[in-house]
């Protein structure tokens, strides 16, 4: 775990209860590597994002290299490789939602959060807004995912109220 030496402040994720949970997950698969996605999820739940140090720790726990872990992390869109705002807001703009006005919902979120651009975090650190591909809820256009919750039937008009509810 060379990266740990570089940052002495890094606190391991897989200790205590979380280590036990990882052991339970490992039982479910015939290889240790198969626990990689679940382990990365545990990191993101604990820390909010997946740092290089965390990749090294996960690699050491599962007997794979940090480079391999990074190769997997970068394939999947849901693992954050940088810290994001307290509220991570994903607006679906794929065709079924676009034809229902999803572009106006994106605009409303950008305007009301103070996020200058898609993917940037607002100056107060509270919000990050991105466009996302089909959320599998196309009949409830426009679905918006705020952290782990999906809000259905969002229109531009409802955006201020939704943001006010995020306290």
């Amino acid at each position, binding site marked *: 775990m060379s990266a740990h030496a570089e940052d002495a402040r890094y606190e391991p994720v897989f200790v205590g209860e979380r280590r036990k949970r990882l052991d339970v997950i490992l039982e479910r698969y015939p290889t240790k590597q*198969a626990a990689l996605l679940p382990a990365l999820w545990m990191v993101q739940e604990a820390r909010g994002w997946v740092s290089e140090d965390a990749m090294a720790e996960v690699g050491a726990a599962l007997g794979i290299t940090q480079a391999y872990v990074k190769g997997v992390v970068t394939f999947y869109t849901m693992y954050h490789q940088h810290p994001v705002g307290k509220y991570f807001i994903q607006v679906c703009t794929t*065709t079924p939602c*676009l034809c229902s006005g999803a572009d106006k919902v*994106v605009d409303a979120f950008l305007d009301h959060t103070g996020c200058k651009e898609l993917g940037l975090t607002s100056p107060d650190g509270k919000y990050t807004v991105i466009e996302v591909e*089909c959320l*599998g809820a196309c009949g409830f256009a426009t679905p918006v995912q705020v952290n782990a919750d999906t809000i259905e039937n969002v229109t531009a008009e409802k955006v201020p109220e939704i943001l006010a509810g995020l306290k």
Partner: protein
Amino acid sequence: MGYPHKPHPRETPVISKHFGDPEARSLAGWKARGGYRALEQALAMPPAAVIDVVKNSGLRGRGGAGFPTGLKWSFMKQDDGKPHYLCCNADESEPGTFKDREIMRWTPHALVEGCAIGAYAIGAQRTYIYIRGEFTEPIRAMEAAVAEAYAAGLIGGNAMGTGKQVDIHVHKGAGAYICGEETALMNSIEGRRGNPRVKPPFPAVSGLFAQPTTINNVETLTAVPHILNNGAEWYKAMSLSNPKSTGTKLFSACGNIAKPGNYEVVMGFPFRDFLYDLCGGPLPGRKFKAVIPGGSSVPIQTMAEAEATLMDYEGFVAQGSMLGSGGAIVLDDAQSMPRMIARLTRFYAHESCAQCTQCREGTAWTTKILDRIVAGHGTFEDLDTLLSIADNMTGKTICVLSDSCATPVVSGIQKFRDEFEALIAGRRSSTVAMGGHAVARAGASA
């Protein structure tokens, strides 16, 4: 339409019968509604007999390809001494499709039971239910149902006291449409990048962890307990058009339509009645223009084609498209077809795993040209270029994502050429006319 909602009188709710009923979510509630009788029955039968019932029912895969389920199960060699696996495909990321989500939210035990029966039939000791990471509520519901089933001894090392091992685990994806492709899904479970594999070998020979594996869609597996409870003949009799398409199917409808949602009808139901009667027709003051009937990967239909369609595997093909996953995207006369198609190819460009040159380059190049046309800077040669790229993207890659990107382009230019030509001739720019700039901005952030 959200739940609870009353089924339309012309629906035939089998799978969706308990949608909207919170009590059906718990084990006790599910048992009170007849749950786990089918599993008990299956565990008392030889596995080959279970497969025969499913074969005789005519059930075909609901994930997109429509492969006969019983036949697929029979490819698994019984008693070969190897570990077998069942994968349940709950990745549901095909634009226009949102049916598996509702099955898992409302009747999670129906899927647990379907998985357990399927696993027993193919001799799989372990099943993984691969659910896309964004589906947080379905994941919670499925994890709770699996835990309840373990605690009650319905699954586990000694399922229902029969000595059979039926382990089921939920595996959470992390954002990647391509992981719905069966071999990419297996790579993803193995802790790899979600790249599709070259076939053969097929999964029944060498699948998950290089062992014999079967993969089935959520809706496919959820139909199985009903077939065991009511018999193959009952299922086979539910067919309004072609005897090769049997049973009920959950169809999703979205886009510019009065009552979007999921509707369960018997195979062969008239698409016209589905669109105008069940889904309430167009929005006030508008007219339907086009339908992409089976999720975004199937050819676009004109309204004349859609209105002549009988909703089964053969019926959609006869009218220039495919049933696919059964998710209808409806577009009305206020939409610009080039703009809507450009956004779809952007989806495929974003989701390509980039292993194959034709797909990696083709999806990006197609999107670039379409964006140019939409912005009013296209040329007439661009249309020929698009068709030529589409040809190079079709039938030449490891998986069919590449073909899926070419499909709306080819069918769109074939059937709505006048809209492309009007934009090129400078008569109208979609972005300006429609007041939208999400497509252009998505380009900046990609």
